[in-house]
């Protein structure tokens, strides 16, 4: 590549671009070598492109793997757990009554590991697959934003709902990572789901009032609400948000999407995560523009009284997740695809369900009767969107603290970066891509070739794909 080719795609030079070119020129002949896609190009990256949309269930706080998907029995295990063998898996069947019914549709992974034992930084990994760097945090986009940016060309004119929706992420310890330096249209619409869905459509009786007010607001602003010429297309005019909001509030599909029937509510476990997953199902069924959903299930940080049956402890949350997840898989699997004849909605929806880390295995702590953060082994679930059905990947030792069989080609634990590779590959996206002209000047890698503490080549877990 020569300087000519660089300047060619920079039509008007300003200060920052000059700097960029300057930097490139300094490294002269090595220029090509800086680009990772050149490094790995010989491998011919071939994304699997098996999924159309993603549902990422974020088990927030650190789920105890040894009391759930990788159950280990000990003197500390409560009797009501009723730990039983299901093929290769051991599950606490007393608190996971529904999951066994969908095991033939999902893959359980027991060889996950995390880089960081602090919630905030670990949750940052979960959302972005990058280590947190405060100096760059403003510009690093979330996985969901990168995916939606890649899918921008597929957006249909009647897609009124935003491509990326996040549920119950507002209180996340890493915050809800947004679009970073990408265009704001790829940022998440952040919804709070409690007893029911948020009222995006006006409440009964309010529709008329809001319509009148909207019209009056347009009159008041008259021509001022028109688009400005000469603005960069990455720039989003604030009135575009109003237009987007108004389109959603008036989309006839929206009241149906954001309605949760009593029966659904019950089947999904009558919980915030249950309601979130009903909503996720509705959103994908309606196909109104949403392609990436990040649904959070919070409260898993069980340092104390982990087995105590109080309001938000492990058995309670497991029951919530179990009912919600199993019903979701069942419903997606029972919905025919509207894009590929003969396929189901599950076939085209990649479902990922993971925690930022696990919890210390073995006996629970004497002082507080709980488990602490643990980064060396935890478990998660993958389903649909090209994933294997009825498989189990990875195996831990007797206590559940050491991975004895990673269960995939790399023969090491599976990290969040590898999961991001799986998501990108399933969505047909080359996970080795980079973006060069970031505000900081540092190259953004979809997936970096290093974690915080190790150089590592991350790649999709091919063993997950059917």
């Amino acid at each position: 590549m020569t300087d000519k080719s660089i300047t060619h795609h920079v039509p008007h030079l300003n200060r920052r671009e000059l700097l960029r070119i300057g930097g490139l020129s300094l490294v002269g002949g090595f220029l090509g070598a800086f680009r990772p896609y050149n490094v790995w190009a010989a491998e011919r990256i071939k994304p699997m492109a098996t999924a159309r949309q993603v549902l990422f269930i974020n088990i927030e706080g650190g789920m105890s793997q040894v009391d759930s998907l990788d159950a280990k029995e000990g003197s500390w295990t409560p009797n009501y757990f009723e730990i039983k063998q299901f093929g290769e898996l051991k599950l606490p069947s007393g608190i996971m009554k529904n999951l066994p019914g969908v095991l033939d549709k999902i893959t359980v992974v027991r060889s996950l590991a995390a880089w960081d034992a602090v919630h905030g930084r670990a949750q940052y990994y979960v959302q972005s697959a990058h280590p947190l760097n405060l100096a760059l945090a403003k510009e690093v986009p979330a996985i969901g934003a990168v995916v939606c940016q890649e899918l921008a060309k597929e957006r249909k004119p009647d897609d009124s709902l935003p491509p990326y929706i996040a549920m119950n992420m507002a209180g996340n310890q890493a915050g809800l990572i947004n679009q970073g330096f990408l265009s704001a249209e790829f940022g998440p619409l952040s919804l709070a789901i409690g007893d029911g869905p948020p009222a995006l459509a006006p409440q009964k009786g309010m529709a008329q009032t809001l319509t009148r007010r909207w019209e009056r607001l347009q009159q008041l602003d008259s021509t001022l609400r028109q688009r400005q010429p000469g603005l960069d297309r990455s720039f989003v005019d604030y009135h575009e948000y109003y237009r987007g909001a108004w389109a959603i509030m008036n989309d006839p599909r929206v009241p149906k999407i954001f309605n949760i029937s009593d029966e659904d509510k019950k089947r999904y476990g009558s919980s915030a995560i249950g309601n979130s997953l009903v909503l996720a199902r509705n959103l994908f069924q309606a196909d109104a523009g949403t392609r990436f959903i990040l649904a959070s299930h919070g409260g898993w940080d069980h340092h104390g009284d982990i087995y105590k049956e109080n309001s938000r402890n492990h058995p309670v949350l497991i029951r919530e997740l179990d009912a919600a997840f199993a019903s979701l898989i069942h419903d997606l699997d029972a919905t025919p695809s509207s894009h590929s004849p003969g396929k189901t909605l599950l076939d085209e929806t990649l479902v990922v369900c993971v925690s930022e880390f696990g919890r210390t295995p073995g006996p629970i702590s004497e002082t507080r009767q709980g488990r602490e953060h643990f980064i060396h082994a935890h478990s998660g679930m993958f389903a649909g969107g090209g994933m294997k059905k009825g498989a189990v990947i990875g195996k831990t030792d007797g206590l559940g603290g050491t991975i004895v069989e990673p269960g995939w080609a790399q023969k090491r634990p599976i990290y969040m970066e590898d999961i991001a590779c799986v998501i990108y590959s399933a969505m047909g996206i080359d996970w080795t891509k980079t973006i060069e002209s970031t505000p900081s000047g540092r190259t953004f890698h979809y997936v970096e070739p290093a974690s915080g503490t190790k150089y590592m080549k991350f790649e999709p877990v091919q063993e997950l794909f059917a």
Partner: protein
Amino acid sequence: MRLHLLSCLILALALGAAPATQKSDSFRDEHKDLDARTQRPDKQVSDLTKSVAAKLPHIGSETRDLPRRNLIDEHLFDAMEKANIPHASLSSDEEFCRRIYLDLTGRIPTTEQLLAFVQSQATDKRDRLIDELLDSQAWVDHWGYWYGDLFRNCANRIGNPATRNFDQWFRGCLKEDRPYDQIVAEMLTASAPNSIWMPDSAPSAFLARWHVPGDTMYSDRYEDTADEVIVQSSRLFLGINYQCISCHGGKGFLERVNLDLVSKKRSELWAMAAFFGRMRIRIVPFQDRFTITEDGTGYDAAAPSSVRMPRKGADLQPTFILSGEVGNPNKPLRPQFAQLLTRHPQFARATVNLIWKQFFGLGIVDPVDSFDMARQDPAHPPPSPWTVQPTNPALLNALGRDFAENRFSLKHLMRQMARSSAYQLSSHFDGEWKESYTPYFSRHYVRMLTAEQLHDAICQATLVFGNYKHKDMVYKTDLPPFRFWTEAPTPEEIGDGEAKSILRTFGQANREQFDRQSGGSILQAMTLMNSPFVNKRIRAENNSRVEQLVKSDKTSTAIVDELYLATLSRRPRAQEKELAITWLDADRKQGAEDLQWSLLNKLDFIFNY
């Protein structure tokens, strides 16, 4: 905070691998496409200002001939003249009044405050208002909260008492206008020998905030913590991001990013961290408390790391990276570091640049933590094609000197900025605006209100306040409720679900891991149009302004005037007024509610212009 490696490994890999060029042109084209979408700070403010200002009714005054009021004006208007760049007219009184209230106190003016200012005939009324606001409690609240965000003062792992006391101490410093160099030195040298909170350990929460745990969340990694303190204090107080060289040398990695850092080695970061090598921050397990003592043995450059690449060891002396000055090992090290840091001109330059961005919307160096020390001096310009980094280096130096000569007074610094004609330019620009004008600050750049400003502005405009309850932290007795969000010591201390929801939607920082998020969203528009927080405030109930007005005997005209003044800090234009009066005349209550709703949903309300 782990290092963001980005292009780091690539060179190493690439040198060993054949530079394959098999990727298709279409791949490359796609990348150009992506590259074009990324946003630079100067372009962002230019586009935003152009868009918003065009949507506001004509603002700005007729005054185009502007006095040069201080060194800021000398430098900025000189630069504009030299480059033959036109500037905007002076802001109108209404425009200035709203702007200065928001920038200095975080609140919009009340109708009384606005009218008193606009109707005043005093020739120095702008200066007087600036002084009055700088001496107000609202200034302390706004900037105390702002600094709490900057320093990420939050309770996680260090506990509520420490957080609250840091907040009280810092607000006290602002109120007394204590020199900023002393404030920073106290933070960097603070001790907390006793884990039970002691009054004189209040500044220690700043350091404890950067504690790095080891294998478990309640263990301590002293070298990692020292690295973190250096990386964060350099970022906050010098505007330099040493994060990259905290894992690896700059060579081969930062050629496109930062000229100065290319030659810097990881051992130089360690040598600076060695000033904190004897410091021991210990977290008390399960208690959200900590101690800070100075009883360690020194920085071990071979110590294991839980957040960075493994250390390889090195012979180190505590050395300040910017000057090469070496610390005396026989004396306490942290005070020496504080001295070296605050006496270096870059401390003042970075601080004025940081505050500049809050007043002018764009840093003289932007991003404010991206200083490249090899590109600061126009007399010794960097090798081509690099350019000098500050858009106006002479201004940055002069303002930094002025700050230092005036005992590092933040009030003085803000007064200088607020009084300048440059700050008081209108955001409206006659004629064609060119993006290339942006570095000259020849118009005022608009910004969205912050989450807290928006929350407070909605409450104040509608007169429905939150009255947030809170308790004394020792005696657990009720304290007078807060009305304004910035009175709270942290984002988590007060509020209800409705308030928290709107604050998060508008990008409030949590101070734990993420900064304030700027920019708009669909959800923001939905929230302003149809959320419980807004709905209950625009209705003629809860003794809201609308209810008071509807029940009063005021005319439709008077109601429209007051709603405009209270919400948008300006009088309605004739057309606006005429239209709104027809709504009220048709149905007084409905018309007033609709108008209040419409005004909260207008760009002039959502933006600081």
